[in-house]
């Protein structure tokens, strides 16, 4: 069915046809026609943010917590450039996002017109694909293709730049939701031969491990369920990247905790010593591998990934399987059941004994304090007091983010919104708002740092306006703690500009925004204060004063191997100062 309508109407109609109920945006001259259409309809809810970066991260939080696509809308020029960080963030974390920007009229493009920026040029390297719409005839197909590309294969952000004159022009709209405009058709199903070979390797494994990542969550609930079946079927231990937390439950008995730079001792040593590694939807990021030449030196590596460029990018694997996690695991489980392999029970038992030995190191132990709140303790209490609830956690970037990953335990996917690949401070508050708007009845907490929270603090106003009762739980250590820790490790503890001076009074700041502020600085008061935070049905800034100089352990210093890990309970300040060699210092 086709209908005549303006370009601006087409934008709204395409959103409706794609099932979009919420978008995040900010108006300006070049998108006024689209805002005018938004005003005249009820189906799509527009959430007005306070900065376009906030719109982008809110769309990401919405997307990650629902499995749906996030949509953001911004004007030309500064609106579009403000979106760049969020687009890059979504690209690195494989978050499906459609961003619509206004552009100066086609007749003015290239003239340095008011608020003109080469948006498609600027965003080309930070989107999966982008378009400048040149003709009204092309608009419907591009809009729908944008959704298809953002959500299929390896998800990612796309951007559609629409000149203002095209928003006003009238053309023919067709719902081409299920038509492909380009030849883009990522392979979902893997070849049977690869699946059978994987099953052979896994069946013969004596010291296996499943290394899972964000791709399991990208693939969706079916992949998550199948992963859990696979673990039951094989009995293999499971670890996950930061991005994959929750796909396998942290309360599951095969769970080893997160791996990587700040992963657990047992997860990293099991990765180092395993004989068969099955990487499922993870990308051998440098936070995971540490020193490549010492990375899991004696294992056969199987890598399941939908993006062929992820395979053999950092680590050469023995068996690449290109396909969707859900589809591959389904075939793998079927092949395993058909073959009914006899596993080496004795070897597995020995492997688990070894793992239990590593677990016994209790690598997440930290020194407690009765006077001051330890940051790890704060997260532990937050977890204990919220675990029975329907809770979503977002984070900013820094030590608090890692403590959240270590001490908050996720039993379900899509519950942890964090900026992994880009590490964007300022991600958490808007992402929490996006999450809250998608899950109005749920408890949504942004585990924040005192520096990060100030990067998008203006979004507190968005939360107040839209009745999104998000809680920003600030681990206030008065430092850019992660930077300070690296300065201690690498630069002789010269704390150059990592002290957060002239902090605002977060309680009064919250009040100024019409939110609620809570301050807590004593371990004895913490539980009551957290309970109070949970009870308040409004946005809250929780200023949790924690000790200033705690370091985040375990840690594999950059340039080191998995078995060269620093543990919190047995490193001295001297060890910390000498842990990284000259070659490691140049790494990030």
């Amino acid at each position, binding site marked *: 069915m086709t209908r005549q309508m303006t370009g601006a109407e087409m934008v709204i109609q395409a959103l409706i046809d794609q099932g979009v109920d919420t978008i995040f945006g900010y108006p300006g001259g070049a998108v006024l026609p689209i805002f005018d259409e938004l005003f005249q309809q009820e189906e799509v809810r527009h959430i007005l943010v306070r900065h376009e970066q906030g719109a982008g991260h809110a769309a990401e939080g919405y997307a990650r917590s629902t499995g749906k696509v996030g949509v953001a809308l911004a004007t030309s020029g500064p609106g579009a450039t403000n979106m760049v960080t969020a687009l890059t963030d979504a690209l690195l974390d494989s978050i499906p996002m459609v961003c619509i920007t206004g552009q100066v009229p086609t007749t003015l493009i290239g003239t340095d017109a008011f608020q003109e920026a080469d948006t498609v040029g600027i965003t080309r390297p930070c989107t999966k694909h982008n378009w400048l719409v040149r003709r009204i005839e092309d608009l419907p197909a591009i809009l729908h293709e944008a959704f298809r590309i953002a959500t299929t294969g390896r998800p990612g952000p796309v951007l559609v730049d629409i000149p203002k004159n095209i928003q006003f022009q009238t053309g023919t709209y067709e719902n081409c939701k299920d038509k492909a405009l380009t030849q883009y058709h990522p392979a979902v199903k893997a070849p049977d031969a690869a699946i059978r070979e994987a099953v052979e390797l896994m069946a013969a494994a004596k010291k296996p491990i499943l290394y899972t990542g964000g791709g399991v969550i990208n693939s969706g609930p079916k992949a998550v369920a199948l992963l859990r079946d696979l673990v039951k079927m094989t009995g293999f231990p499971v670890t996950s990247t930061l991005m994959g937390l929750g796909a396998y439950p942290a309360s599951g008995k095969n769970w080893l905790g997160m791996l990587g730079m700040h992963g657990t001792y047992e997860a990293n040593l099991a990765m180092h010593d395993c004989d068969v590694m099955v990487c499922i939807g993870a990308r051998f990021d440098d936070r995971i591998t540490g*020193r490549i030449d010492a990375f899991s030196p004696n294992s056969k590596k199987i890598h399941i990934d939908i993006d062929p460029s992820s395979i053999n*990018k950092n680590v050469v694997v023995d068996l690449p399987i290109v396909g969707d996690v859900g589809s591959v695991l389904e075939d793998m489980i079927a092949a395993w059941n058909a073959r009914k392999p006899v596993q080496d029970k004795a070897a597995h038992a020995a492997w688990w004994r070894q793992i239990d030995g590593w677990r016994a190191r209790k690598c997440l132990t930290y020194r407690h304090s009765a006077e001051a709140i330890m940051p790890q303790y704060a997260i532990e209490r937050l977890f204990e007091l919220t675990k029975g609830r329907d809770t979503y956690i977002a984070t900013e970037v820094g030590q608090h983010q890692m403590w959240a990953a270590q001490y908050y335990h996720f039993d379900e996917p899509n519950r942890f919104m964090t900026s992994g690949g880009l590490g964007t401070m300022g991600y958490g508050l808007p992402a929490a708002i996006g999450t809250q708007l998608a899950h109005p009845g749920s408890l949504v907490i942004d585990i924040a740092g005192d520096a990060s929270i100030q990067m998008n603090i203006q979004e507190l106003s968005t939360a107040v306006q839209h009745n999104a009762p998000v809680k920003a739980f600030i681990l206030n250590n008065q430092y850019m703690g992660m930077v300070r820790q690296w300065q201690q490790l690498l630069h002789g503890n010269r704390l150059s500009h990592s002290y957060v001076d002239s902090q605002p009074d977060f309680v009064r700041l919250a009040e100024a925004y019409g939110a609620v502020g809570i301050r807590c600085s004593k371990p004895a008061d913490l539980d009551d204060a957290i309970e109070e935070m949970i009870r308040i049905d409004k946005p809250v800034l929780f200023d949790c004063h924690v000790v200033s100089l705690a370091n985040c352990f375990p840690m594999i210093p950059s340039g080191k191997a998995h078995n060269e890990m620093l543990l919190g309970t047995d490193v001295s300040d001297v060890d910390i100062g000498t842990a990284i060699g000259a*070659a490691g210092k140049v790494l990030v």
Partner: protein
Amino acid sequence: MMIVAGQSQSAYFLEEEFPATERSHTLSVLVDNEPGVLARVVGLFSGRGYNIESLTVSEIEHSNHQSRITIVTTGRPPVISQIMHQLGRLIPVHKVINLTWAGDALERELALVKVAGKGEMRDEALRLAQAFNARIVDATLDSYVFEMTGAPADIDRFVGLMKECGLVELARTGLAALARGKMGI
């Protein structure tokens, strides 16, 4: 746990492992000829730190707006595979073929070579041009412009000789390449 400072090598410098196998590869890339497609390809190379030795692009199918981009780049086999996969990720890219892997591909380039001079050197330039099958496309009393088509290495040799005969300037098209035999891309 023992931590020994300064012993580890960097984790990220994969490059050092197989220096011997680094060589140049000719990639043939079939793309939709839409605005920005060349910028996507070039941006991918510069953004990811791959080098481009030669790049040519032209529409080859006017009916469906398809272009062939021929890129010469150097790297070890894993880097070349990575480049090919990264190219494959671009939405307007239909196909990526490594002509160097496919074997002994046909590789041709066109050069326009301007030389100026009189007397002996002018005669020598003409003789060499004949030997290299270069055509005269412009002549004045004290200059020639030669057109030469051939494998890049032959053009290099011709140009090298012309330097001795008063080379003024040079324009090269970059590579056009096809696999031998009956199979298409």
